[in-house]
Structures are given as C-alpha cells and as structure tokens.
C-alpha cells in the first residue's frame, strides 16, 4: 500500500539563463531562430577553437545563488563532462563538478495539502553553471536525424536539491518557487514551454519505520510542472507495487512518457556513463573578491517576499497581493500601472478581475498584450473618477485587449464619457416626480424601498450626463426636502 511508504524526492533543476549571448562564445542565446544560424566555430566545436567565459552568465549564476539563499563559492572550476552524443559537438559538456559556483542553501516553500496550509524548507546542495547541448531533429520520412546547434552553449544552471521533498505537491511547489525567484532575480525567464526550465527527478520510497532511504530511480528531463507532478505520482505507485510484492527497486535512469503518463527504463546503473570529468584546461578558475560579491548581491532586484510586504503595506489584501506577486509579468505590469495612476486597490481589482479573467480564457497573450500599462491605468482612473461607468470600462477594455487603442478615444467614439449636468439632473428629477406621484408619496410615507425604483427611472433618463453617484445625492436631497 502506498500509505505504508514515505516518498523521498530530490530534484536537479536545469534552468537556462537569460543572457544575451552564449556562455562560451558571443553567439545569441535567444530561443529559436532558423536552424544553425545562432552558432559559430566555438559553439560548434571546430578544431582549434577555445571557450571564453561570459562574465554575465557567471554573475547571473551568482545572482541565482543569492535569490535561492545559497552561499557563493569564491573559487570555482569548470570541468569537462565527456560523452558522445550528436547534439554535443565537442563530445564534452563544460560543467562544474567539484567546485561549483554556488554552495548549499535553503528555499522556503508554502503550499496547501488536504486544505491545510504548510510551510517547509528544502535544502539546496549546490548550483553549478554549464552549457546546454544542441537539439536533434528527427526526419522520420527520410530516416535521418539532423543536428541543430543553436542551443549549444546556451548558459544553464543546474540546481541540485537534497532529497527533502516528501510529496509531488512539495516538488511542484519547489519548482514553482524557484522559477519565481529566478524570474524576479532577472536571471531566467523560466519558460517551461521553451525548455528553459526542466528537471531530473529522483524518487525513492522508504517504509515508515525505516531509517535509511530506499533505492532511487532517476527520471530524466521532465519538462513541465504537470509532468513533474505526474512523474512522481507514477513512480510512487510503481515502486510501491514492486515493494509490496517483496521486490527490489532497481537503481536506474528512466524517462517520462507524457502521453501515457508512465516512466520507462532507459539504462541501468551498470550502463551508467563514466563521464571522466576533469578540470577544463581551457578555462581559468573563476575567483570572486568580497567586493565583486557585494556588488552582485546589491544588483539583485526586489524579490517576491519584499514585494509582497510592500503590497500589504499599500493596503492590498493578502490574497490579492499574492495573486499579483506570484506572476512576475503581472506584477511588473501592476508596477507600471502604479507609475501612471497611484491607486493600488482599484488597479489590483481591475487586474485580478478583468485582466486575469481574459488571460485565463486565453484571450490575452500576457507576454505581448495589445494594450500598455499606461492605457490600463488611465482606464481605471476614468472609471474611478466616474468619467466612464464601471460597465463601460469593461467594454472599453475588451476592445483594448482585442484590437488595442486609447481608452479615452474609445470612450469618446462610443459616447461613453459622462459629463455631469446638474441643471439637467434637476429637470429629470422634477419630471420623474411629476410622472410618478404614487411612488414619491410612498417614499414620503416611510417606504424607503421605492428609492431604487425612482433612481432607476432617473438614471435611465440621465445616461451620459450624470453619474449614479450624483443622481443618488441629488435625489436624496430632493426627497428629504419634500
């Protein structure tokens, strides 16, 4: 039975750094591009070429270390990890084995399990900097595989955790938390769909009364949050079944098939590669002074926890604040809006309501919306100052999201701008009173419920020349004077 066992989970999270150029040459590190257009003799491993370390990549790795509460190694060494594979043109990957750039640390996670709020700290063993490999494109029609070296040499950090997680939910939450921290640190966009964050998942089971961990399986290259969760769920089930039968889990490397939701054996421990690591003689060791590290630490932007505190101090309720903070794109958008219209509560309401709703419906590409923060801020301001009605604001935003455009111009074109004309308000109230003596009499006799009815009649007449607030005030004055 699964409940007889405690799952023990560790992750190796690979994350592409968002530097402009690659880690050992000056080629663009951007995702995509036509095949083999973002490579040069160095990243293609041509004879005689040499790697040159990208200082920005090194600094980003250090920033990642600080963002994840880790120590920094003032002395780190690049090693060669030797193996043959067609996507690895040098037949070795430059990585770090014994002296990684980032030392141990701890990442706090908060999550809900069975409706209960939980907090935990997951230890990081170390983080090292390395280069990504290329990609193979399989042409089944012609029975050939083609190499695309664009990704060769894109800087990666590998975040190696201790086996501290005990459920798929904890693992999922850790990856989410790390991705958010790295996004805020400005070192990675952590886009799962572009492969810029992926994980090797280590899972083992131990009996509840056991003192030692069981034998683990490593599932390679799991590339979405959902897959990480499902991989772990599947492995727990698989290993529990083996153990229930009195069998032994084999130490091996497996891969996850997302279509079937299963993991499959790739190679056993005996077939494991001997990577023959040794220090790369082409790259001098990286040394940091205290001043270097202070400077890099100081360059770290506002992190999620700080931002959350700041939002709470603005009077934004915790729940709303967290929705914003947990999405860096949205949070940055909110920050930009605030520069134009300093009304946090109204902006948060609009963003968490109208904007998030349309994003979740897939109507808005949040990374490339058709509207600007300034336009949204202006729209919210128009709505808050009764220049347009709340309902009309939504209609205006819909057009902004679909086609783009200035909210004021849309409002003008659609005749949604409210211009308050007090004389006209009085005229309409007089006319409504005259036409509806019954309800007015009822109100006078203490039946306050008819206020809404009367106000509705006034509003209908006054559309575009008064706001409900003005109508209400004037109407109250007039009724009180009767």
């Amino acid at each position, binding site marked *: 039975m699964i409940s007889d066992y405690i799952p023990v989970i560790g992750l190796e999270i690979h994350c592409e750094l968002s530097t402009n150029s690659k880690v050992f040459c000056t080629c663009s590190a951007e995702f995509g591009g036509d095949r083999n257009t973002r490579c040069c003799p160095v990243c293609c491993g*041509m004879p*005689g*070429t*040499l790697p040159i370390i990208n200082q920005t990549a090194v600094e980003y790795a250090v920033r990642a270390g600080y963002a994840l509460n880790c120590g920094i190694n003032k002395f780190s060494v690049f090693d060669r990890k030797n193996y043959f594979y067609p996507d690895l*043109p040098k037949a070795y990957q430059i990585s770090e084995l014994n002296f990684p750039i980032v030392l141990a640390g701890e990442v706090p996670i908060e999550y809900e399990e069975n409706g209960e709020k939980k907090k935990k700290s997951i230890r990081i063993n170390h983080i090292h900097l390395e280069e990504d490999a290329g990609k193979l494109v399989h042409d089944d029609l012609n029975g050939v595989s083609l*190499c695309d070296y664009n990704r060769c040499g894109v800087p990666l950090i590998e975040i190696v955790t201790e086996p501290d997680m005990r459920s798929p939910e904890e693992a999922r939450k850790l990856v989410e938390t790390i991705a958010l921290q790295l996004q805020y640190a400005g070192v990675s966009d952590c886009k799962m769909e572009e492969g810029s964050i992926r994980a090797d998942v280590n899972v083992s089971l131990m009996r509840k009364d056991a003192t030692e961990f069981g034998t683990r399986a490593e599932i390679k290259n799991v590339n979405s949050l959902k897959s990480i969760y499902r991989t772990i769920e599947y492995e727990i089930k698989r290993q529990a079944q083996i153990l229930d039968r009195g069998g032994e889990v084999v130490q091996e490397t497996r891969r996850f098939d997302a279509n079937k939701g299963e993991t499959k054996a790739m190679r056993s421990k005996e077939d494991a590669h001997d990577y023959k690591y040794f220090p790369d003689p*082409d790259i001098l060791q990286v040394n940091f002074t205290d001043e270097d590290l202070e400077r890099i630490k100081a360059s770290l932007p506002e992190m999620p926890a700080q931002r959350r505190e700041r939002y709470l101090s603005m009077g934004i309720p915790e729940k709303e604040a967290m929705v914003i903070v947990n999405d860096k794109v949205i949070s940055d958008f909110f920050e930009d809006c605030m520069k134009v219209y300093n009304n946090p509560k109204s902006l948060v309401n609009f963003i968490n309501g109208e904007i998030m709703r349309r994003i979740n419906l897939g109507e808005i590409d949040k990374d490339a919306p058709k509207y600007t923060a300034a336009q949204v801020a202006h729209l919210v301001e128009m709505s808050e100052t009764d220049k347009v009605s709340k309902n009309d604001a939504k209609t205006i935003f819909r057009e902004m999201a679909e086609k783009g455009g200035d909210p004021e111009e849309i409002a003008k074109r659609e005749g949604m701008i409210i211009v308050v004309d007090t004389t006209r308000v009085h005229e309409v109230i007089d006319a409504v009173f005259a036409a509806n003596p019954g309800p007015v009499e009822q109100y006078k006799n203490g039946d306050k419920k008819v206020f809404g009815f009367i106000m509705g009649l006034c509003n209908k007449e006054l559309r575009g020349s008064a706001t409900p607030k003005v109508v209400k005030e004037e109407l109250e004055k007039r009724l009180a004077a009767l």
Partner: protein
Amino acid sequence: MSMDLTVKQLRDGLDSREFSAREITQSYLDRIEKIDGQLESYITVTGEKALAAADKAQQRIDAGESAPLTGIPMAIKDNICTEGVLTTCASRMLENFVPPYNATVMDRLEAQDTVLLGKVSMDEFAMGGSTQTSAFKKTKNPFDLTRVPGGSSGGSAAAVSADLCGAALGSDTGGSIRQPASFCGVTGLKPTYGRVSRYGLVAFASSFDQIGPIARSAEDCGIILNAIAGYDYHDGTASKLPVEDYTAKLGMDMKGKKIAYVSEFFGEGVDDEVRNSVLAAIDSYKAMGAQVVECSMPSLKYAIAAYYLIASAEASSNLARYDGIKYGHRSEVEGSYNDLVIASRSEGFGDEVKRRILLGNYALSSGYYDAYYGKAMGLRQRIREEYAGIFEKCDLIITPTAPSVAYGINENIHDPRKMYQADFCTVTVNIASLPAISTTCGYNADGMPIGMSIVGNMWKEADIIGAADAFEKTFVRRSAAL
C-alpha cells in the same frame, strides 16, 4: 640566389631592394618543387596565394612601411588553422578540413603581410617525436635523409634547415618545437604558456600546447615572437601581461649570469657525444663570464609518466570531437550513431593517436582517476616547485634538448616506451609552463646536429633569446647536406 638567409637578412635584402618579395617567394617555391619530393616536409604548398601575398607585401615595402616580417616567406605547421587553406594535422581524420577561420597567430602574421608558403608536416595531431606518424608526409632529416627530422614539428624544422622557407611556426606540447629544431640543426623557441594565443591551434594537450617559431637563429625567433605574442580575447589562457621586445637582449652580456647545471638531465640515457657537447657549451658561457650553479631536480624521473598521463588525458577529451558528424573523415559504414562514430574514428586516426586516446581515457576513468590523473597533477605541482627553487638561485638552466641526435627512420617507432622516454629533457618545461629555446651547440661524429636547451623563468623569453644569441655569435653552424 643563396637561400640560407635569416629573417633578419631577408628583411635587409627586401628593404634594400636586393630582391623583391615575389623573387624570394618564387625562389623558395622553386626549391620546394626541386627538393621537397625527397624531404617531404610540405603537406600543402600555397604557391599562388604566396605570390599574391608577396605582391601585396611588396607594395608595403615600396611604400616604406614594412613591418619586421613583411614579405618574409614562412611555413606553418599543419595544426595551425589557416582560413581557406587545408589544415590536416597530418591525419586522415582531417584530410579535407579547410577551416573557415584563422588562428590568432595567422591573423598577426597576416597583419605584417608575411607570406604563407604552405603547411608543413608533423606527427599526427602532434603526437610523436619523429614526424613518422604523419598520415601524409613522413618528413626526412635534411642532414641525413635516412634519419628522422624529429617531431612533432618535424616539417617546420626540416623546411627551415633545408632552406625551404625563411622561418616556420611549430607547436610544442612536450618538446615538439625544440627537439626537431635540435635534430635539424636550427633554433626553436617554446614560449611561456599563455604568451602566444592558442586560438586556432588544433588542441593536443591544452594545458601544455604552445605555438612558437623555428628559425635559423635566436634573433629570428625573437623577431617572430614579437609578431605573434600577446593577449588575445579568444584564448582565456592567454596572458594579459604586456609583451616586451624579445630582441632587446640579443648578444646578452653573460657576466655574472647564473646558469643552473641540473645533473639529472645529463645522467643515464644521454649519449656521450650529446653530453659532452652541451657541457662544452656551458663552458663557453663560463668563458663569457657566467657562473655555473649545480642544482637538482629529484622529480625528473617521474616527469615522463606525469606528462604522458596528463597530456593523454587532455588529448582523449580534445580529440573526442572528431566523430565524423560535423567535419573530417566520415566512414561509409551503415548503422547506428555509435557504429558511425566508431568506424569513423577507427579509420581516421593512426595507431599512435589511438594509443594516447586509450591511455588518456584509462587515466580519467572512475576508479583510476586518483591513481593516475590525480597523482600526475600532484607531480606537476612538485616539478613546478622544483623549478621555482632553481630560479631562486639561477637565471637560466641549460640542458640537452634530446638525449641523442636524430635517429634512423623507424628505429624507435615500434617501441613507444623508448620513444616516450626520449622526451625527458623537454617535457618538464611544458609541465612547468616555462619558456625554453633550443639552439645547435655541436655535431656528432656523423655530422648530425646536437641541440642544447636554455630554459628561463616565466615570461623571460627575452633573456633566453639573448643568451642563445650570445652563444650563436660564437658558434659556426653547418648547413644541411640537402
């Protein structure tokens, strides 16, 4: 026209219009045509390009703007990448490899409008000391065509010695410039590791490899080093230390200079004629006023083992990129990726290269790493320290360049142990990253040249060039028989 001209003499002849750049280039090309069939030093002769370069150089000479190497015809070892010109490393593996980029040293020579005559032979991938492992041209010794020219830069040394070029570039990993210079009766300089950029030098052992000149005199070596030395962005191990004028100390006053006599270099295994000749040279330095200090290098007996372990380990990784996928030899064999790689490498590499790849992989394998590679790295440190100790007391060290004169073709080739052992005079210099120059100090009874090496402390190229030049001014060199 006499062809045994030094770079200095060629410069004077060109600048005084005694001959034109085209004339001198054509003379070398004619001589190559005439005798290289016997000598077999050139793998590729770039006749047309050379004449075009000569004409370009002539314009510069005519404008009175010649640099020290303008119009000087040079031969380049075939492991130095030349844009648009075949660069084979004397291996079937790179039989058709035409680099789309220049080595940094080539850019620097071209900046002076040096004339490239062609690419000269070497031991395959610079592995060997005889040039007999070349897949294409097994170069002979110009003093005796039945003997080897040494190696791995045997083509460079033979071409200089036989007047087939004004000067040449070689590369030195464990003696590959100095030993062939010694065997062919010319001067060869191995600069301090990091003095000359390695970018574009096809790597053998990255932590030892260094490009340097082979020429008719120490002065010529200084002139060429002036052109190629200095920091290069493309090589992370290139030193940022400012360059000097490496001809500044020519004809060095030896008075008060302390020369280390390290007895271990003169012990068992060194031919009597070689020993006596080098001791006589030390005596002539004494006569010039130098003092001789007896020193010791206890670790020398381990140097060969340490060198071959480290160099082979690095080579096994550096040569892994030749998989037949991207460039170089690709087997016709049908099958899997592994089949293709295995067949391509089996067909493309010669026996000596395979031997070192196997040795290197073994030394790096898990379970053996500490006993071999790790221990060798420890020895490397100890040898560095022993050298540092000697340089605390002395200015220069003089040793034989090789334990013997050039041996007969195929004499050693079937006994790798004996062949490796013969490198004991030269490898420690690479292990300790030091500069050294080999110059002819005598001839044996058969008239074969004997070389001595002058080793300097880090960055002391000007000193060893000056000291070698002081000796060369007192010594009458013989011309090769060819």
